[in-house]
């Protein structure tokens, strides 16, 4: 893998294409969650073009996927801003119902109302929602979330804490200071 990366850094077009094949699914899903499935291929393609151009700046001190997510996050944010689009389509009931779901945990389904949870996630600020999605949906560590968003891990921890307090309050009908 290291040698493939080195070849890609040297400009080997086949190595660059292999890199796309290896990480495309993760990046595409990341983009689809942020700009929707229609724009996701374009966003993913732009992400890989940028990544391949800037590959020499990747120092290898983190997972390559995390580095790609950082680029994809910027592209998706710019795209959403240009299109002035609703970036939370998948949280809308119609979209979620029609999309293929993961199998939910049997005990949690009974405990948490999903409609309420969708609503609570939509009501979170973008800062909080980003860290929640990167942590829970992408399964990144705090350090990796910080690397994607360009913030320290301590800030990630703090934002997650406050985001979950707000979600809990929304789900259980508690009062909370935002």
């Amino acid at each position, binding site marked *: 893998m290291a040698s493939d990366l080195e070849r890609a850094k040297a400009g080997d*077009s086949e190595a660059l294409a292999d890199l796309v094949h290896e990480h495309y699914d993760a990046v595409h899903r990341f983009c689809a969650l942020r700009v929707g499935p229609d724009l996701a291929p374009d966003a993913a393609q732009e992400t890989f073009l940028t990544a391949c151009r800037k590959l020499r700046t990747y120092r290898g001190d983190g997972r390559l996927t995390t580095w790609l997510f950082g680029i994809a996050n910027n592209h998706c944010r710019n795209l959403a801003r240009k299109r002035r689009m609703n970036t939370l389509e998948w949280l809308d009931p119609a979209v979620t119902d029609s999309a293929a779901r993961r199998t939910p945990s049997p005990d949690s389904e009974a405990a948490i109302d999903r409609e309420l949870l969708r609503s609570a996630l939509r009501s979170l600020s973008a800062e909080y929602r980003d860290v929640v999605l990167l942590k829970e949906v992408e399964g990144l560590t705090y350090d990796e979330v910080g690397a994607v968003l360009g913030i320290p891990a301590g800030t990630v921890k703090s934002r997650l804490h406050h985001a979950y307090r707000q979600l809990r309050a929304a789900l259980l009908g508690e009062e909370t200071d935002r």
Partner: protein
Amino acid sequence: MSIRDDLKAYVDGELPPARQVEVEAALAADPELNREALFLKELAREIRALAPEFESSGREAAARRVRLEARPDPGPGRVWLRRLAFGTGFVFALIGFAAVGAGLLNTIGNRGLDHAAGAYPAAEGPGRGIPETESDAGAAQMMAPAEFDLRKSADGLGGPPAPAGMPGDRPDSVAPDVGGRASGLVVKNGEIRLRVESARSALERANAIATGAGGFVQRSSLSGMEGGLPTATITMRVPASRFEATMTRLGELGQVVSVDVTGEDVTKQVADIDARIKVLRAEEESYISMLRAATKVGELLEIRERLGAVRQEVESMTAVVKALRDQASLSTITAALEQRVAVGEPQPDRDWASRVWASAVNGLVLVLRGLASVAIFVAVFAPIWVPVGLAVWWWRRRRTS
């Protein structure tokens, strides 16, 4: 920090071991806290479950485009080198501009300083060595100090270059024969302005130069010893044959700021007067002969009266010729010696505070005037920028809506 603040990080396994032990102990002791931790875990699971799976598409297109278009940018090393090269070029360009600007300012500054002082005649070629006419002699040409070679220029006024330490002395006040032209009498005047380390010692040395050249000091003064930088002025008369050498030696006293040399050819004037004197003397001889031959008292008185008038005129003209020869034989040099400010010794100035105050107030007035000018321009150009601004505002508003 309370245990609850770290509960989410504990659930995510992001706490350091010591803190993790503390949280676990708290969880074991507090069933409510335990329930909260379980809720956080369930909530995370539910969020993961909410995220839909999307069918991946566009992989091949992305790989194809990357294969065709993507070329990694130069590495950080090369970027660094490029930036270094660009930065170096930029710095050199700045230095170049600064040097050109400083040169211009220096030239303008010196011209400003010396605008009233005249300048050293640019003596180039044999024909320009001696002013041809009075108007030529009076004409002065400016020359920047940086371009000025005192020894060369002084020699250019008349005669061959003088070697250093061997001033270009000439046997008499008569200007040399230049280009086969008849030699003449030239009245030379020189003014030199210098910046020196010490005005007092430079004045003493200038005195010595004057006497050493066989001349004398006509006037000297030293001023500004209290409250300002000392300035000395010395006017000396030196033999015309030592004029150039004296100017050169004076120039060695410090940094030459400006030099002004004028030369007036009085040869023709002297020759005219000499001719008239010759005629008058002949007339005088004639009257003397007539006086000897006269027999009547009336004739005697008339001839003596005319003889007296002729003699008076001859005396007057002889005095003029003598004065001109004297001026030509002794040149006048005036040297202004300004003491420069030494490094680490601020110029003594008792009135600096009021000057700084005035300068600051004037600066403020200038700034306010500049702002007012900008405001006036903005207002006057309103017919141009207001419609553009409104159009942009309308367009942005339309896009937003």
